[in-house]
């Protein structure tokens, strides 16, 4: 008998959520994490005496306390958390700023709707049709999964500018494929951002991560840091042994990997004949610390998605960074009970992994400086100029993302090929997280939960999985 019923690779939010489900139902479970920090894509670190968040700008899928339906409510029940454990505070208000047009939105869909009606009067009815289709996606449009969202949306919305403005936030917060996404994912993300909305805990992502890790350990789960997986030994279609970076090994009956689909397959001694394509879309992000509240400087939006070109391009940039579009996030601008200790502005843009990877150490440091300046110069065309108040800053690049997530090419949202079933070419190896197809921090946790329910909760879980699978379509 193996030491563990399930070994989970990666202590990101999906792996931790899966671990909680399994430990709760008395499975022997161990999470292996390569780094000294948990969180993976969504994490935090200290630098110069300050806390910095990476990943998470905002939690999507917000729902106020007492909400019974929707992804957040389902997640809290599945993990047995109180609403206050995540302490989510709703955004103040965000915007999508394109040449000549700005659409504001907040957590009440009415605002976004009226902004679209005002900015695009000819599209009023078309937009309503799209919104209805997105809400009714589970029932009427389940067959549209796998269809190009651009072609489906294009049936309703005729103005390409409005199409681009709707796609921009969705792609920045979950677009694994260049130019487009699957209509099923589009619907889920449209609801999670425009209809449910954005929120953040005062303490940032650590609020959520620490709760997940604490609960997992309380339930008897084992969390091993500095335990990276080097490879998996395979015999007769099953993973038999997991070899760690230090040469020791671990054995478990089943393995759930949050390392990414391609990345997981590369760990196996026997790879399938067809390995899916790795993602290509990575980011650079700068974090600027201010000696003032951003609002007092005129930066009063929670998040601004901007694009300054005639067409919004969601593709791997030819240069190191594409500053034509990006995301500006002020973590201060949520409805907290007390202000954050310092002002923070985060600016994110698409970046080219290969370009960053090829730089020498000196070139890399110089490029970080250059592109920080260019990104911020671009950002202050869309928000108030906060540059005179910057007292500290940090920048991370596609190579940083690769280092901490293990994702090939630093692809934040993983492979364009998603594996909804979570199954692989090996009978006891499953995947969860970004490449299972649910994005966002709530989506990632649900991915871990659903995969645990479906594949790892034992004999009855097989039939239970069907029930759970039916349930998750509603997410």
């Amino acid at each position: 008998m193996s030491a563990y019923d399930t070994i989970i690779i990666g202590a990101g939010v999906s792996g931790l959520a899966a671990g909680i489900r399994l430990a709760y139902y008395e499975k022997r479970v161990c999470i292996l994490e390569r780094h000294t920090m948990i969180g993976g894509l969504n994490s935090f670190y200290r630098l110069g005496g300050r806390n910095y968040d990476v990943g998470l700008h905002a939690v999507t899928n917000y729902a106020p306390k007492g909400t019974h339906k929707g992804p957040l409510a389902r997640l809290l029940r599945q993990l047995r958390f109180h609403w206050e454990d995540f302490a989510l505070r709703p955004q103040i208000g965000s915007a999508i700023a394109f040449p000549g047009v700005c659409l504001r939105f907040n957590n009440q869909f009415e605002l976004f709707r009226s902004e679209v009606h005002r900015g695009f009067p000819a599209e009023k009815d078309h937009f309503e049709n799209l919104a209805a289709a997105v809400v009714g996606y589970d029932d009427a449009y389940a067959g549209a999964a796998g269809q190009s969202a651009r072609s489906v949306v294009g049936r309703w919305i005729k103005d390409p500018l409005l199409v681009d403005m709707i796609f921009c936030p969705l792609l920045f917060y979950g677009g694994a494929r260049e130019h487009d996404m699957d209509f099923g994912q589009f619907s889920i993300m449209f609801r999670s951002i425009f209809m449910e909305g954005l929120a953040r805990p005062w303490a940032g992502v650590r609020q959520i991560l620490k709760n997940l890790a604490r609960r997992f350990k309380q339930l008897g789960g084992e969390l091993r840091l500095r335990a990276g997986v080097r490879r998996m030994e395979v015999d007769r279609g099953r993973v038999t042994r997991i070899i760690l970076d230090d040469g020791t090994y671990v054995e478990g009956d089943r393995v759930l990997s949050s390392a990414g689909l391609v990345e997981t397959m590369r760990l196996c001694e026997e790879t399938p004949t067809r390995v899916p394509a790795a993602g290509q879309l990575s980011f650079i992000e700068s974090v600027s610390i201010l000696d003032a509240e951003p609002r007092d400087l005129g930066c009063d939006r929670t998040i601004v998605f901007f694009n300054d070109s005639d067409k919004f391009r969601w593709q791997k940039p030819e240069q190191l960074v594409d500053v034509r579009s990006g995301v500006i996030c002020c973590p201060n601008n949520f409805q907290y009970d007390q202000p954050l200790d310092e002002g923070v502005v985060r600016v994110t843009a698409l970046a080219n992994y290969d370009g960053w990877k090829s730089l020498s150490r000196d070139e890399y440091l110089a490029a970080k400086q250059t592109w920080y300046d260019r990104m911020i110069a671009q950002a202050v065309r869309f928000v108030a100029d906060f540059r005179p108040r910057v007292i500290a800053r940090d920048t991370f690049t596609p190579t940083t993302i690769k280092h901490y997530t293990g994702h090939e090419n630093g692809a934040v949202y993983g492979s364009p090929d998603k594996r909804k079933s979570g199954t692989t070419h090996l009978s006891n190896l499953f995947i969860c997280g970004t490449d299972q197809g649910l994005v966002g921090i709530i989506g990632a946790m649900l991915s871990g939960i659903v995969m645990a329910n479906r594949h790892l909760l034992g004999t009855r879980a097989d039939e239970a999985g069907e029930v759970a699978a039916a349930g998750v379509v509603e997410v």
Partner: protein
Amino acid sequence: MSPAEIKAAILDILENIAPDEDLSGLVDDVPLREQLELDSMDFLDIVMELRKRYRVQVPEDDYVELATVNSTVNYLAPLMKDLQKA
């Protein structure tokens, strides 16, 4: 376990699944799905909690018996009558 004890056990499971919920106003013969807006994943959890706590197996065909508090107690009474209160 007596029917009253089984009912208390069910309420304890519901409180565990939905910790923010006020269960004091729960009506025993109105479907839980309506009152608490429980979904299929939650019903699955009720089944799994029964297995974890009392080693009671509920086959999938019988999930419909868990619709209300009363129907659940009636269904579980013969299965749990010989159990000692946990």
